[in-house]
């Protein structure tokens, strides 16, 4: 009788622990995020997106644990309990009506933004946003139009990064998603466009 209830308690504890471990180990799916970013960038930039060098390669973010996993002593027992697939191949869902709508808005704006990228007046920032590279190079009559385009584009980009995080039920991923996008926008930029390198200096592709 006693052994039975002990076993039962043990089972319950194991189930509870394994369930807890599954929810704790939330890896940011960096590789999946890069693929999702590439698809969105292709949609927004259309044929203008350059074939992605290094697309699908995993960045240094891969496997970064967002919330610290269970202590080492417990881990080996639990590893055996969790189905391998659950932790090994995390997915990232970058489709939601909000994302579609934002993508459409950005795609429409790209007609106006592309000439500015081509001329080098606007460049791709290291932070996942666009920026006016040299404000003085913009003719006075155009300055507010350029400022507005950049401002509205960045508002949409901020919303896009947030909505992708929200669509995956992980709002705290927003920063990492933005970082992945920052790299992918630059990787897929056309030759001649300007981008900010890691030290914040402008460079031309």
């Amino acid at each position, binding site marked *: 009788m006693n052994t039975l209830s002990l076993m039962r308690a043990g089972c319950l504890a194991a189930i509870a622990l394994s369930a807890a471990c599954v929810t704790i180990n939330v890896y940011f799916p960096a590789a999946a995020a890069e693929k999702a970013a590439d698809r969105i960038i292709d949609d927004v930039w259309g044929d203008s997106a350059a074939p992605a060098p290094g697309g699908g390669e995993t960045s240094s973010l891969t496997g970064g644990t967002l919330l610290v996993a269970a202590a080492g002593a417990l881990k080996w027992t639990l590893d055996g309990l969790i189905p391998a697939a659950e932790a090994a191949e995390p997915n990232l869902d970058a489709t939601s*009506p909000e994302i579609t*709508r934002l993508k459409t808005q950005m795609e429409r704006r790209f007609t106006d933004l592309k000439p500015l990228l081509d001329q080098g007046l606007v460049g791709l920032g290291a932070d996942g946003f666009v920026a006016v590279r040299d404000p003085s190079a913009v003719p006075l009559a155009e300055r507010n139009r350029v400022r507005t385009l950049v401002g509205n584009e960045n508002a949409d980009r901020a919303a896009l990064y947030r909505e992708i995080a929200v669509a995956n039920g992980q709002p705290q991923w927003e920063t990492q998603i933005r970082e992945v996008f920052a790299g992918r926008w630059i990787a897929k930029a056309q030759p001649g466009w300007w981008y900010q390198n890691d030290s914040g200096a402008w460079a031309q592709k």
Partner: protein
Amino acid sequence: MRTALLVMLLIAAPAAAVDRVELRIGRVDASGWQLRDVAADWHRDGRVRLQTRAQGQALPHPLHAELDCVRLRTDDGVRCGALRLRASLDGATLETTGAAHVATADRWQLTLQQARLRLQHDSEDGRLAAENLQLGLSGDIDRRDGETRLQVQAQSLGGQAYVEPWFVDLDTQPLALEAALSLSGTDALQIGRLQLRLPGAATVAASGELRLSDWTRRHRLQVDVDIADTAPLVPYAQAALATTRLRGLQADGALRLAATVDNGRLVQADATLDDLSVTAPDLAAGFDGLDGRIAWTDAGTARASRLAWRSGQIGRIPVGAAQWRFETAGRRFALREPVDVPLLDGSLAIERLALSGLGSEALQADFAARLRPIGLAGLCRALGWPEFAGTLSGSVPGLQLRDGRLFLDGALSASAFDGEIRVSDLRIIEPFGVLPRVAADVHLRRLDLAALTGAFDFGRITGRLDGDIDGLRLIGWEPVAMDAHLYSTPGDRSRKRISQRAIDNISAVGGGPTGLLSRGVMRFFDDFAYRRIGWRCVLDNGICRMDGIRPSDEGDGYVLVQGWGLPRIDVVGYSRRVSWPVFMSQLRSIGRTGPARIDGS
């Protein structure tokens, strides 16, 4: 120091009965000042020419100056008639004629006539720029008793300017400026009058005082803006609002603004509107005949404000004349008396509206309103929907803003088709963000299907219908997500019949065959009895996952209409995943053309 030295030289020269003195000094140093390449040329007949490059702690760039005096008298200090001055500092060049009188270093007067100022400037961040900007100036500068007084009139002669976010092309939009300023000591500037005029459109007048050394933080200014005609200013308003939801704003009418700014803080602002029309295309809203006075104060006792409009439009719904009496101070707004806003043949009666924390994350609202019955026929007409009878009413006893979402308490209910439609848990997600969304739960109870199918030209169905549409989310009034379930009202004992055409339509919408029933023996029946109808759609990402009352007996379909009696007709659907846009276009085509028919039999 500099003046004293030169004056001494010039006074000494005639004494020696010399005809001409030419003097070049490489460098003159004084406390805070340095002159380089000073060249002075004196003629016996009184003509003097002076050239120098000056650099001072107060000057960001070296100043080049050339001064010509045609008549120089030195009996009472130095008096220079028919003066010609050319000075340049970085991108600014001033050329002028006039007269000067220097009695002492602290008592002098300069008169400018037909002065011309050219500006070429671009700030490092590009937010302030002038391109070949030219101003014509005339006025007096007068230094006496430790006070410098400036009286000047200026008008633009051409060129372009950019003061973020405004671009002004002075070739097409001339400006005129008048100023009466006085400087006590070197820091305290009194603005007696500073007036900027855009001929035919607006006048901006300012007065007050400021500290030159820290003018962005230490000032007290009274600014009055009088806009006789807003139309020429619309491009400037649009430029300022281009990144907000008010982008594309149109305005026509008169507007006066008065503001008091104290050390960088707005302390009081009054706006007077006179027959103003405003349209904001992005918000799909506009108002005509706006009249009233809005009096805002930063702190202290709130004053009475009034705002009225003659007519308006919110979305596609016309809004009637309304008058708001309220008070607003700091981040607070409160209605002084209830407002009745006519909407079609009904109205929105706002009994209570008090907001605090306006423009901040901590917006709090105390709101209570009732929707007085609005005829659905008129509403449907306004929205371009098929017309049907009924009324819409409801009450919103409160609203809250949390996490960028505006939650409306209470519910709206419509009595339509002899049943009830209830909209509850209404929320507006990020109402001021880049992607405003509306979310709600909708419940339908005991709708008369005969009236409903009649309104939508779907083919006749009789009986009663219930529905639960949970988690409905709309972007731009288009549903993008929901869990919708429509089903025969449980326990309904009314006569349940469905026409051939309705069956055809249900089948067509589901992608199935049409016209099957108009062949063979079935064609003798106009309609059929049914036991239950049920349809479910879980919409997400443009895909509707469909289901019916229960799985079909054969195959992996689902039953949409369960027949009853003889002849018994069951309608079974097989498509589980249906594209929502395709589904909607099929539904719309039914309303227009009726179902497809197959001839013969």
